[in-house]
């Protein structure tokens, strides 16, 4: 759409634009968007996951002509969306367990094949805990069988529902309830990391992508791309958590944007196990911009900033920038 008309005013980055034709607008700009995750859910102020979920599911709904079934792992999204007697979901939705969303989705997909409903598509969704930790086995199995499921991970980098404990997606130095900011090396360890998008690619599934709530059009495009493909697909969405990260609710998108603009969270797409595209950084910023507005990193600053470890984090960002060519 950007080609048809240049939006130097609104950029190609706002949700919509009064000058665009309906079919060129983002799904979220649509007055008749499905609001798959409806108002009245119990998410915290400024919840990135609630935002990411509506973005992703609405986009998938549009891409499938509303023929969508969602499976949800246990976690914030499940708890805040479906506390009896109310549900915020507008689509057929099932929650089973913490660690089995991918497998349940495989079952739903198998049922659609058995019923001959090739038009009905299946999404599984979970947080980073349910995806990168406890649900990892089922996820890998679903990938390996190449079941017709899009798995979406909403990554807020810790177990938020249980009170902010460390997950294998928690970044180095971050403070959580189980990696407190005390002692000689406060916060989370500088481990080797667990790059699930990369692990997904190693299964050579047809489509893998990373996305951020700060780049809506990019996110919607990726979900749309994913729904145009059959087989196992994986989209990893970065969703800040004000409560767990100690950030201001109004900064949710800002932080997500900084994660991208620093290079800490590279946005890319991969087909059949190979990276095919990456979203360039628009205005590169140093990681300190990102770190300093989150209390979970407060111990890196304060009276005597921990330049050593901040430097290590900057290295990670620079590595991503080089690896994915984010400044090209």
């Amino acid at each position: 759409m950007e080609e048809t008309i240049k939006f130097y005013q609104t950029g190609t980055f706002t949700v919509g634009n009064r000058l665009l034709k309906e079919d060129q607008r983002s799904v979220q700009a649509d007055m008749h968007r499905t609001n798959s995750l409806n108002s009245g859910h119990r998410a915290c102020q400024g919840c990135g996951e609630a935002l990411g979920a509506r973005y992703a599911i609405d986009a998938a709904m549009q891409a499938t002509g509303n023929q969508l079934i969602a499976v949800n792992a246990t976690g914030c999204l499940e708890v805040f969306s479906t506390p009896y007697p109310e549900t915020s979901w507008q689509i057929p939705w099932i929650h089973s367990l913490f660690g089995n969303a991918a497998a349940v989705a495989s079952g739903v997909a198998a049922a659609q094949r058995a019923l001959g409903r090739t038009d009905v598509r299946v999404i599984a969704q979970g947080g980073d805990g349910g995806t990168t930790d406890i649900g990892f086995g089922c996820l890998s199995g679903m990938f390996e069988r190449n079941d017709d499921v899009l798995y979406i991970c909403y990554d807020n980098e810790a177990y938020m529902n249980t009170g902010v404990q460390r997950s294998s997606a928690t970044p180095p130095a971050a403070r959580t309830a189980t990696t407190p900011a005390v002692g000689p090396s406060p916060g989370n360890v500088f481990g080797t990391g667990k790059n699930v998008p990369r692990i997904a690619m190693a299964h050579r599934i047809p489509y893998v992508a990373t996305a951020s709530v700060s780049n809506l059009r990019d996110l919607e495009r990726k979900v749309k791309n994913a729904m145009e493909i059959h087989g196992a697909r994986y989209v990893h969405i970065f969703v800040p958590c004000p409560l767990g990260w100690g950030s201001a609710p109004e900064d949710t998108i800002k932080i997500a944007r900084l994660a991208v603009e620093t290079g800490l969270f590279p946005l890319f797409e991969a087909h059949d196990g190979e990276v095919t595209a990456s979203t360039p950084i628009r205005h590169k910023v140093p990681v300190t911009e990102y770190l300093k507005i989150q209390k979970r990193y407060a111990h890196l600053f304060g009276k005597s900033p921990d330049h050593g470890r901040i430097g290590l984090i900057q290295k990670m960002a620079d590595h991503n920038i080089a690896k994915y060519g984010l400044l090209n």
Partner: protein
Amino acid sequence: MLKQTEGSHAVAEAVALCRPQVICAYPITPQTHIVEGLGEMVKAGELTNCEFINVESEFAAMSVAIGASAAGVRTYTATSSQGLLFMAEAVYNAAGLGLPIVMTIGNRAIGAPINIWNDHSDSMSMRDAGWIQLFAETNQEALDLHIQAFRLAEELSCPVMVCMDGFILTHAYDRVDVPTQEQVDAYLPPYQPRQILDTADPVSIGALVGPEAFTEVRYLQHHKQLRALGLIPQLAAAFRERFGRDSGGLIRSYRAEDAETIVVALGSVNGTVQEVVDEMRSEGSLIGSVSICSFRPFPLAVLREALQHAKRVVVLEKCLAVGLGGIVSDGVRKSLSSIVLNGYTVIAGLGGRAITRASLRRLFEDAERDELEQVTFLDLNADVVSYELERESKARRTGPTAEAILRRIGTVASGIG
């Protein structure tokens, strides 16, 4: 049609006749032959519009089954032993969501020590998961119970386990009567889900339920099983009518009407028990037996009916509630509350230990003389136990018990019984 075939294969044929649409398979002895059989039928195109899914774990097997069942198709899987424990969380979940999944359990012991042979510890560990548990006495019954299980599960919206003794039944070649597709279709109507993930009529399944409604949800689950107490005999009767065989039901009595001593047991061991009963009857003993087919729901009333006139009840269990004794015994005692009689718990056949006529005969005679302990371990090798106890009392670092015992017994292991 009569056939001489393996128990697992007979069950596979029965399941296929029930037209399942999704089957999840993960290998574990001794259940494996069943899903292998079904996999072959799907590949060979004998079982049509059925998705056969090779999953990466039992946990995934039950999870895939949950998804498929919630999406409105007839779903089946099978497992044993450690496998059932590994899927435990999903087993409870399937029942909590009221999904009519049917699962075969090839009953097998639970480690450690790891042991692939038969006992009932696996099913028993899930006895309160909210599933209906039916125990098969013979391969014919195992076959028949699967056909009844799907109908039962779907009428109640409640998952059903069909339990059959590992190896003793799963691997035994026996004569079975395999019904025709027409017969089964006439008995088992197509699946009409009570709740379904449908884009035309969306719902949210699996809500977070707090204190304000949780008790009610649980009560309704309990109520389902109470309904099953009525439904199981009806379905068995309907089955008899259609297939001309007695299979299933809540319990089955054998020469127990006038018995002073009644042996209660689950599963295949009942055959051997009945042989011994006949023997002893022919010699004048007033002994009989009762086979429990439906362990969940537990048939308190009919059991009371069957046992109340006896002088003593011997509960023969293939599992052990460590630190207590019997598991089945508890239910039996509850069924007899306020009735005064001698009750004995006998733990037998753990980890595949053969239960022989000779041992049973000795046991029952002791029982008739009321010379049994409250809890008796059949054919327990006292020497081995006391030697090991003594060894442990002597040294602190005594090493692994199981291995120590094997060393002492030596190669007799390849012997018989």
